[in-house]
């Protein structure tokens, strides 16, 4: 599995963990916020936690990935020095036009799911559902969109992308 595929999996994992944590916390009767302000605060806190968790997971991923490349380098060639290991790590992390294209294509999926969520949230208001319900639709579909984006990105890396 390539660096990009592993990075994508790390990103899907952090997104899924955030969504699961939000659902477990917010829909637990003991923690359910009382009013709209409470829900907004909960969501803001989870957005902040999500950003922090993503950064931490990416840092941990990069550390483990670098260690993995170093160990592999040492197994293949016992006499390889730190400079060579550093070069191998850099080479594994190279990003080029294919990565940008795949990222762009998967962003489209993320935006489509988020757009669908936005319309669903507006429809919920039109059909007299509470603003809390609307906020939850927005938060959950945006988070789910980010997960779908990651999954599609992973699929494109595995399957390939040929323009046709």
């Amino acid at each position, binding site marked *: 599995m*390539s*660096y*990009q595929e592993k990075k994508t999996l790390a990103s899907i994992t952090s997104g899924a963990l955030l969504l699961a944590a939000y659902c477990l916390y917010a829909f637990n009767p003991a923690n359910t916020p009382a009013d709209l302000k409470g829900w907004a605060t909960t969501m803001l806190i989870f957005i902040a936690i999500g950003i922090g968790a993503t950064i931490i997971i990416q840092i941990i991923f990069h550390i483990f990935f670098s260690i993995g490349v170093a160990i592999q380098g040492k197994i293949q060639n016992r006499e390889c020095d730190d400079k060579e290991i550093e070069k191998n790590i850099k*080479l*594994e992390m*190279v*990003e*080029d*036009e*294919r*990565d940008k294209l795949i990222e762009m294509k998967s962003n489209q999926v993320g935006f489509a799911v988020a757009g669908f969520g936005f319309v669903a949230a507006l429809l919920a208001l039109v059909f007299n559902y509470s603003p809390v319900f609307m906020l939850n639709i927005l938060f959950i579909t945006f988070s789910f969109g980010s997960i779908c984006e990651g999954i599609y990105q992973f699929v494109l*890396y595995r*399957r*390939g*992308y*040929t*323009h*046709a």
Partner: protein
Amino acid sequence: MPSPIVITNNIRKLRFFANEMTQQELAEKAGASRQTIIAIEAGKYSPSLEMAFRIADAFGVSITEVFAHEVKEK
């Protein structure tokens, strides 16, 4: 709509004739990642014109010696 085009390549053959150049060496010369070279060689990615020229330059041949196209009949 025009018929779809399938792009084929001779990268594996050209690497063999270039003293069994590794995918990593070609990636470095073409300014791409090794994964991209693997994907191009396997026909899983069609590179941009710019990268196609860089790959051809890495072998010192013309672009038509590296890439060819076939029109798929509908």
